[in-house]
């Protein structure tokens, strides 16, 4: 582990985090001296509180506080309504539903649905392969779980449920019951196995994403009661339960996120480590770098589980979190951006 050439954190560490491994403490030996220096030069104690107050005061006056949230909601509604409008006015722009569609005649297939169907039917269906590859390329460019927060209609409704949950929690009426994150990986394997063994797409029938998308386009069904039930649990018992602990669609797109070039980047220089970002995040484990002395590098990417929703980017008082498209050549690690080779700002650190 002490190999200096190895960039930390490694591939398996980042993917493991997504699969449910818990966050481990960063060892000082693994951090570059430059990063240690930055941490040591950071403001401490009362100074931090003063700085935070100042930054938050600035923040209050800032217009467009929810820039990314608004863009995201707009996109999500646009895509889902495009399905509805396209069918209603018979426009042939975006036909089908989120599980599979034709956009201007081009096949698109939800990656997870396609996977389930291939395993259940044990057939390679050519149009499905075309749709799968198209969507795969799309999300490699735009960021894997971006599907979750920018497209999935259940995500939007779950956000409102989360809002209610947090309000009630504030009043002490409900509290959040966390599950072990590994359970999502278990579900993933269980649903793949069930599809293969039973020959039915068992998950598709209970997937709130598909149910909601179809209900929007083809009208309400009784299956919606299942979605309501899930939302009630999320409001009363466990914050964002489905997206955090169950949904295999999220994990499928998470795997795509490993290779995606669209990321949220964390820069440690101005970060005050107050942790606001982790409070608003659906998957706070991807933001572990923002805890003091946890980041390995000056610039650290969030892991593949990140849904690129931009909540952390919106809330960060110091602009330490930003969206970026990274060069394909550098895309070697799922949550690590090696320092650029000719970084002009690179300062030499005196060894003490």
């Amino acid at each position, binding site marked *: 582990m002490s190999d200096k050439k190895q960039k930390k954190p490694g591939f398996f560490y980042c993917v493991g985090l997504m699969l449910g491994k818990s966050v481990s403490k960063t060892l000082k030996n693994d951090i570059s001296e430059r990063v240690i220096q930055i941490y040591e030069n950071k403001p401490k104690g009362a100074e931090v509180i003063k700085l935070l107050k100042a930054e938050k005061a600035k923040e209050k006056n800032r217009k467009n506080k929810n820039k990314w949230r608004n863009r995201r909601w707009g996109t999500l509604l646009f895509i889902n309504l495009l399905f509805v409008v396209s069918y209603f006015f018979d426009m042939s722009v975006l036909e089908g539903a989120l599980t599979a569609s034709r956009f201007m005649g081009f096949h698109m297939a939800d990656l997870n649905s396609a996977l389930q169907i291939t395993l259940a039917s044990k057939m390679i269906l050519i149009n499905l392969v075309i749709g799968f590859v198209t969507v795969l390329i799309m999300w490699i460019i735009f960021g894997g779980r971006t599907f979750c927060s920018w497209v999935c209609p259940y995500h939007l409704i779950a956000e409102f449920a989360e809002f209610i949950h947090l309000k009630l929690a504030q009043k002490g009426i409900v509290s959040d019951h966390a599950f072990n994150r590994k359970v999502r990986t278990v579900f993933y394997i269980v649903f793949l196995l069930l599809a293969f063994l039973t020959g039915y797409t068992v998950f598709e*029938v209970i997937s709130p994403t598909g149910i909601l998308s179809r209900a929007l386009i083809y009208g309400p069904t009784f299956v919606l*009661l299942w979605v309501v039930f899930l939302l009630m649990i999320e409001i009363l018992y466990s914050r964002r339960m489905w997206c955090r602990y169950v949904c295999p669609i999220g994990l499928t797109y998470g795997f795509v996120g490993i290779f995606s070039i669209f990321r949220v980047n964390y820069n440690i220089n101005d970060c005050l480590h107050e942790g606001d970002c982790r409070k608003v995040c659906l998957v706070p484990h991807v933001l572990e770098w923002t805890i003091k002395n946890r980041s390995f590098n000056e610039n650290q990417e969030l892991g593949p589980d990140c849904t690129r929703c931009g909540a952390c980017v919106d809330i960060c008082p110091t602009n330490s979190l930003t969206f970026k498209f990274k060069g394909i050549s550098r895309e070697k690690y799922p949550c690590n951006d090696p320092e650029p080779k000719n970084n002009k700002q690179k300062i030499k650190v005196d060894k003490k």
Partner: protein
Amino acid sequence: MSDKKLNRAEKARREFLRTTVLATSVTGISLAALIPTLTNSAPRLRPPGALDEKLYLASCIKCGQCVQVCPVEAIFLGDIFDGQGSGVPYIDARVQACDFSCDGLQCVLACPTGSLTHDLNYVPDTRMGLARLSSPKTCLAVAGKGFKGKIREEGYSGKLRFDEIDRWNPLEINSQDYDLEICDLCVRLCPLEIRRLQCEAGKPPQNDKNQCPPYKAIELVKKDNNRYVPTVLQGCVGCGVCEMVCPLPEPAIVIDERVEWSEK
């Protein structure tokens, strides 16, 4: 709230229990959706070209593109009681049968997975099921009765293509008035019989002889005097138009899903 006071081991124990309950209940619920399917409690008529039921359910991606292209809006998606068929397309012939007024089997062409098999190219090759005279006692033709008026009850909005009136736009069946000495609606409006007669007259649909049914689908067989029995023949594809256009409150002829014709 109470969790905060607990020690670490107890917290971990509770989290483990909670997680186990979550895993078993969600898996259990998803498996419960198999019950209506395995017991076949709600058999459905499927759109043209549907693969064998099990493979059909396995390969359908539940996107509804077939629903969107159907000109007579015959296709609906299953609901919670359909179990694994939830979100999967079906046809309720009595509500709206498939009359092939799209000619090209648009639902088959629209299907992105081949759940509605792309091997099906021509209407007469479709095999959705088979019509059966389920209630000869009430059938008007069997009783030697005629039929006068509109086919279905007031407010019914099912459609059919009436070739001689409008080739391109299906019309509501209740827009037509009938006055028949012997009720032969199930034969007269059978889309396969209409095609067969067009072919006999030298005008096959779309000028394509492949569209010509090789066999009769249904005919009235004279029993005695003035009594006739609608008899289903080898050319029947199970589209359900006869079930839709039977003017009785309860149709005397119905479709048996996925049954194929055989000499008895």
